[in-house]
């Protein structure tokens, strides 16, 4: 908006500025203390950024050369192509493998994490020691990245997708255990107390009071993870644990950029499809709450 078209209210306010400042001193002059603190925080963050860029050996020259080469790759990537149909079928099989790894990884982990989640929930096992130990154990399992798990499992069961499944199971058990126990702790106590008041045993209370409440929430979380695990399953092939990652890493190394873009495109389409299906299923399971 140009100055000529200034709104009359704005013009009026600008003319009245001195009086306005006198009337609302706290708005026009925020306390110098708060201002200094904000400056200090921003300055500290910026200083750490500069220090980081220096330590990590960023340099303008490196960026220009790298960006130039990246631009070159982009040009070579178009159009995406797998060369021959035979290659395409190989990639498609690897993609199916990836989805299978994600599927098995997620649902096996969910089955294992279910009892662990109850164990780690404060309102089911009100023992502080068990609670602490199970939570810390889940944290430890979760702290190890799936790529690390994949490397470990490759050295146990050998190269191939099976190692990938086991790696995803391990990584997911930690995450699910934590999510499930939180869902259980957030459940309504009334149903549990109702079952207990009719003379139900502890297990009855869990089965009929707790499980119906938390199962839909858990199912939604598991479905949500299925999508993100498909993404994870695409990369564990980089360390030899099956799936499309192996081909992707190989094609990047041999500079076959059309294959690379075709592979990325295939992954994007698959992830989008799974996202759509899992969102639908989540929606069917728990209605609006599961849509996000």
């Amino acid at each position, binding site marked *: *908006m140009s100055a000529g*078209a*200034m*709104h009359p*209210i*704005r013009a009026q*306010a600008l003319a009245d500025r001195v009086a306005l400042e006198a009337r609302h001193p706290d708005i026009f002059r925020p306390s110098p203390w708060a201002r200094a603190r904000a400056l200090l925080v921003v300055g500290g*963050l910026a200083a*750490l*950024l500069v220090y*980081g*860029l220096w*330590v*990590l*050996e*960023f340099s303008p020259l*490196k960026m220009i*050369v*790298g960006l130039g*080469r*990246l631009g070159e*790759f982009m040009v070579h990537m178009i159009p995406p192509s797998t060369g021959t149909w035979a290659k395409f079928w190989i990639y498609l099989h690897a993609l199916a*493998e990836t989805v*299978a*790894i994600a*599927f*098995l990884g997620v649902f096996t982990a969910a089955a294992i994490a279910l009892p662990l989640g109850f164990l780690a929930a404060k309102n089911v096992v009100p023992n502080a020691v068990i609670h602490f130990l199970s939570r810390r154990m889940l*944290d*430890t399992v979760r*702290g*190890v*990245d799936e*790529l*690390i798990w994949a*490397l*470990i499992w490759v*050295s*146990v*069961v*050998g190269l191939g*997708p*099976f190692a990938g*499944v*086991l790696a995803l199971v391990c990584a997911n058990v930690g995450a699910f255990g934590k999510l499930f126990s939180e869902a259980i702790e957030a459940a309504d106590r009334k149903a549990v107390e109702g079952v207990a008041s009719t003379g139900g045993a502890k297990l009855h209370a869990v089965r009929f009071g707790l499980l119906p409440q938390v199962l839909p929430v858990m199912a939604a979380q598991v479905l949500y993870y299925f999508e993100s695990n498909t*993404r*994870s399953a*695409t*990369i564990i092939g*980089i360390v030899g644990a*099956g799936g499309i990652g192996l081909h*992707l*890493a190989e094609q*990047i*190394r041999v*500079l076959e950029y059309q294959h*690379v873009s075709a592979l*990325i495109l295939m*992954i*994007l389409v698959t*992830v989008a499809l799974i996202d759509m299906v899992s969102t639908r299923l989540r929606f069917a399971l728990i209605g609006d709450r599961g849509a996000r």
Partner: protein
Amino acid sequence: MPSTVTRLPEHQLDALARAYGEAVSQKRRQLLIGLALFVAATIVAGIVAEVRPATFVANIWRFTDYIGRIFTLDNGPNTGRPVFTDIAEWMWGLDKWLKLMWETLLIAYVGTLLGGIGAFAFCFLSARNLAPTRWAGIAAKRYLEFCRTVPEIVFALIFVVAFGLGPVPGVLAIAIHTFGALGKQFAEVAENIDMKPVDGLTATGATWVETMRFAVVPQVLSNFVSYALLRFEINVRGAAVMGFVGAGGIGQDLVEAIRKFYYADVSAILVLIILTVMAIDLGTERLRHRFLSMSTRS
């Protein structure tokens, strides 16, 4: 208060009972069909993923053996004893590893900050209620989606070829992924703001940038910081494995230790990573709670 439950006459009861039975059996049927589909999918997935339970059972001792071995010293005078008996020998490379860990943290920090700044600038374009034009909003959303769907390791692999080995491709890969992920979360926060201050500022003739600065930013900043901190924690984990593809950080040493069977080193580095991740986890959680309570107070 005494109360009696009146029993419905038989013929009415019959119809209700039948309807109930039908509803229950329909639900059971649905459950059974779902279960059958699930089992079939599991079997297909098992075949495709070459799951071999026999191999697993036959080799599971290797896993426990492996875990045992990485916690056993394989060098020095105490060879063969558990690592905890000789911490100095176990952590022989502590100086080098701590330096690499610091590099990992810096990769995560710089990546998160660069990606976060980009996401901050971008989210106002892509939020449905704030986008200057509809097309800008749609284009920005698709772009963010691309950035977060491609795994960061894939970006790192490509960047390593373009920028050479070292932390630079790792930082850029994390920055791009963070940009995509935070851009989406930021936009969702921005879509849920109170629009009254925006209308107010627009009414005074403020420009788009001024409106964003004075009407939107004060409402969303604490949530943004909270999401950025959460993303930083995730990125520390991500940065720890960037070294697997030669993109800097502690991952380089870890992958070497695993591949060359330096067992005790594997556990030493893993313990360092886990402790760091836990510390960051706790620290960011505290900060986040402070920021979130700030936003609910105002």
